[in-house]
C-alpha cells in the first residue's frame, strides 16, 4: 500500500487543539470535523488538501488532549500519511486504532519541505521525496501494531478475533 501527495509542513508540538479546536467537538462526524482541520495554524489547509497529501511536522505531533477527533479529522481531510520525528502517545495510539497512517522518521521530517511531492510505501516504510529524489527509511511498527494496521484499525482487529 502506498500514498503519494503534496506536503504540508508544520513545526514542533502541533497539539490536538490546533488540529481540531474544541469549539468544533460538538459533532463527531469525520467529514464535518475535516472542514476545520488545522484551522488555528493554517486556515488554508482544509481548502487546499487533496486526497493522498502528506503532513510533515516536528517532534511530539498531536500532543494534548485524547480527542480521537484529531486523527479522524486528518484522515477524513484526505491526508495519506503524517510523518514526524515523534508523536504524542495518545495521538499515536489513536492513529493506529483508527487506521490513520503515521510514520516516525526524524531525517525525513527535517529534510522534506512544504510543497514537495512525496510518496510513502507502508509495507517497507520507505519514504521517497519525488521532488529531490532522496529516500528515507521510517521506523518499522511492532508486529502487533502492524496487525492492527493491516486489519484497518482496532475495532476490525478485535472483531476478527471474536470471529476466530
Amino acid at each position: 500500500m502506498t500514498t503519494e501527495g503534496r506536503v504540508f509542513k508544520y513545526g514542533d508540538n502541533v497539539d490536538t487543539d490546533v488540529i481540531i479546536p474544541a469549539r468544533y467537538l460538538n459533532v463527531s462526524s469525520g467529514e464535518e470535523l475535516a472542514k476545520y482541520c488545522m484551522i488555528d495554524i493554517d486556515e488554508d489547509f482544509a481548502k487546499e488538501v487533496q486526497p493522498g497529501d502528506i503532513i510533515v511536522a516536528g517532534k511530539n505531533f498531536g500532543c494534548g488532549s485524547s480527542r480521537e477527533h484529531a486523527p479522524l479529522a486528518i484522515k477524513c481531510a484526505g491526508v495519506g500519511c503524517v510523518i514526524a520525528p515523534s508523536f504524542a502517545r495518545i495521538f499515536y495510539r489513536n492513529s493506529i486504532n483508527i487506521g490513520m497512517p503515521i510514520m516516525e522518521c526524524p531525517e525525513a521530517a527535517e529534510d522534506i519541505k512544504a510543497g514537495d511531492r512525496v510518496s510513502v510505501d507502508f509495507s517497507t516504510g520507505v519514504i521517497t521525496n519525488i521532488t529531490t529524489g532522496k529516500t528515507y527509511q521510517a521506523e518499522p511498527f511492532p508486529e502487533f501494531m502492524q496487525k492492527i494496521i493491516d486489519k484497518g484499525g482496532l475495532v476490525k482487529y478485535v472483531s476478527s478475533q471474536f470471529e476466530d
Partner: protein
Amino acid sequence: MGMTMTQKIIAEHAGLDSVRAGQLVEADLDIVMGNDITTAVALKEFKKTGAKGVFDKEKVVIVLDHFTPNKDIKAAEQCKACRGFAMDMDVKHFYDVGEVGIEHALLPEKGIVSAGQIIIGADSHTCTYGALGAFSTGVGSTDMAIGMATGKAWFKVPSAIKFILTGKPAKWVSGKDVILHIIGLIGVDGALYKSMEFVGNGIQYLSMDDRFSMANMAIEAGAKNGIFPADDKAVEYCREHGAKEPVIYEADEDAVYDEVITIDLSELKPTVAFPHLPENTKPIDEAEKEAVAIDQVVIGSCTNGRISDMEVAAGILRGRHVHKNVRTIIIPATQEIYLECVKRGYVEDFIKAGAVFSVPTCGPCLGGYMGILASGERCVSTTNRNFVGRMGAKDSEVYLASPAVAAASAIAGRIAGPESI
C-alpha cells in the same frame, strides 16, 4: 531486573510475573471511563464490535462534564446519545447534570478508583488517579469502546523517570507549582511514552489535592502516566471515600529508570507557564516583572477545582475586590465541592469580591463555553493547557498558574503572586 511501580501494576493485570519496558501486553482493566465528547465517538465504535453489552456494568463510567449543562443544540444531541447508551447498557456509574462533576475530581471523590488499579479513560487527564497509586492513563474513543466491550486494553510497557522530591514547599507553593516547574525543566515531550514516578521524603508535605494536580499534568510532559506510591495519606483517602481496598505497589530497589531527577521543594517558587506551551515557565518574581495585564481569571478544572483550591482562592479574595478589568470565573469541580463552598461561606466571599461562581463544568478550560476569550485577550487560568486558541480566539493568551497566583492576579489586574497584593 527490578520493576517500577507502573510496571508491577501492569504485570499483575496482565497475569505475568514480570514485564520489561517496551514489551507489548494485554491487561485487564478495573475501570473504563469516558466523557460526553469522547463517549459520543466511542459508542459508535462499540456498536461496530458487535458486543451485546459492556464487560462489567460496575466498571464503566460515563461522565457528562465537558459541554454540560448543554452548551448548544449539537452538544445536547451528543449528551442525549451518551445518556441513551448509558441507559441501554445499564451503566452504574453514569453522571449527568445534578450529580455530575469534572471527571477527574469526581471519580476519586466517589470512591470509583483506588490504589493498585488499572484505569483507562477517554480523556487525556485520566492520569490524575496516579495520585492514589494507580496506573491510570488517557486513551482515545476506540480504546474506550474496546475496553467497554472486552475489559482489556493493549499497552506498551513504559520506562520511567524517577523524580525524588525532597524538602518542604514554602507557604504559597502548591502541587501545581511543582508540576509546572517539572514541565519547565523537562519540556512538553520530556517524558514522552514514559511514566513519571514521584517519590521521596518531600511527598509527605503534599496533600492529596496537590498530588492530584501533579499527576493530572503528567500528560503535559508527554507522559503515559504519573504515579505516587500509595502512602498512608493515599490509603486513608481511598478508605474515606469508600473505594475498593487499596493494593500497594512499590518500585523494586533495582528498578531501572531512564533518568533520576531530584527536586528540592523548598527551593521552588509559585510558577507561571506563559503562552503557548506548558513548558514556558517562569518563577513568579520573573513573571511579575513582565507586567502582563489580564482580562480574565479562571479558577477551576480537573487540575485545580478541588476544595483546597477553593479554600486558597477564598482566603485571598475575602474582603477584597477583583480588578475592574478582570472577569473572574470560579468553578468548583464537583457538586460536593460546590456544597462545601456554600457551607464554608466561600461563595459569599467570591461574589462579594466580584467573581462569578459556576456549576461544575470543564467549559472554559478547553474553549468550550463559560469564559471564551476574544482576540488579544489574556487569561490567568488554573487549568492545564495554554496552547494556541485553547480558550478562545487564536491570538488570545493563557497563562497557567496555581489558584493562589490566579486569585492574586484577579485582584492586581496583572500577573501577581499572593505576596504582592
